[in-house]
């Protein structure tokens, strides 16, 4: 059985998802390929590669948002809009996480982009500079 690279498997998964093919066996096929090549522990990396491919193809950006407080609907919508524009994707999947350590502002990370406009980041930058 051929061993596929993680990138090949991610590309295969994105093709199945975007070309209207049967997605019922997709998880099973991916799991079989990873087990066959002894890379069971790299499932997380495979999912990250799939996110990367989706974003690179301009389809979907999974954005991990970290803020000191929960975001109201208005700001979430505004943020999605901005991420779409900046990442050049059709859709955005926001995964919001509240972290008081950030003090204020927001941090956004996608597969290909990263923005950190938190107060924590600014303080860390000052600390490193000093």
């Amino acid at each position, binding site marked *: 059985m051929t061993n596929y690279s993680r990138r090949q498997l991610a590309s295969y998964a994105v093709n199945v998802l975007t070309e209207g093919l049967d997605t019922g066996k997709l998880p099973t096929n991916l799991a079989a390929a990873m087990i066959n090549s002894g890379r069971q522990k790299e499932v997380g990396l495979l999912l990250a590669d799939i996110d990367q491919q989706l974003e690179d193809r301009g389809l979907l950006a999974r954005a991990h948002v970290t*803020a*000191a*407080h929960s*975001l*109201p609907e208005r*700001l979430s919508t*505004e*943020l999605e809009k*901005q*991420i779409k*524009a*900046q990442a050049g994707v059709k859709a955005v999947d926001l995964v919001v996480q509240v972290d*008081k350590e950030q*003090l*204020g*502002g*927001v941090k*956004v990370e996608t597969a290909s982009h990263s*923005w950190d*406009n*938190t*107060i924590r980041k600014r*303080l860390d930058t*000052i*600390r490193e500079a*000093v």
Partner: protein
Amino acid sequence: MINVPIHFAEAESSASGIGAFNINLKAFAFQLATFVIVLLILKKWVFPKLSATIEARRQTLEESLEKAKQTEEALASAEKKAGEIIQSARDQADRSMAEATAQAKDIIAKAELAADAQAARLIAEAEERLGQEKLRLYEDLKGELAELVILTTEKVLSEKIDERRDRRLVESAIKELVHD
């Protein structure tokens, strides 16, 4: 000899010639002969030996005097040589002392130069270490001060930034995404 006065008496009786001196010719002749015999004996056997002994003693004395003279001369020569040797030794000692003094001065001068260089090097090293230590302390102090300021800022911000203010910050951050 006991009868000499008798002979004088007899001579006194013959008042002419030698007899006027009351000399007994026989006795005189006998005494003269005896004297001559004794003289001959002495001359034959005693005087030569005595003369030889005296001569030997004289020669011995002369030899002794000569030896004494030679000894005296040798002593004088030895004293002269000793004086020369002592003078030479003194000169040599003076030269050695002068050389030793010069060498000691040279060594002291070199040691002083080396000590000065060593002291200068130690001072320079100490100054460098002091400067490094000062810089390190300055950096530590600056870092600690900055850390203190940052911690204080964090504390103040955590108290001052409520949800309402944070929303404004988020709005500003979203707008900044456009510029990034």
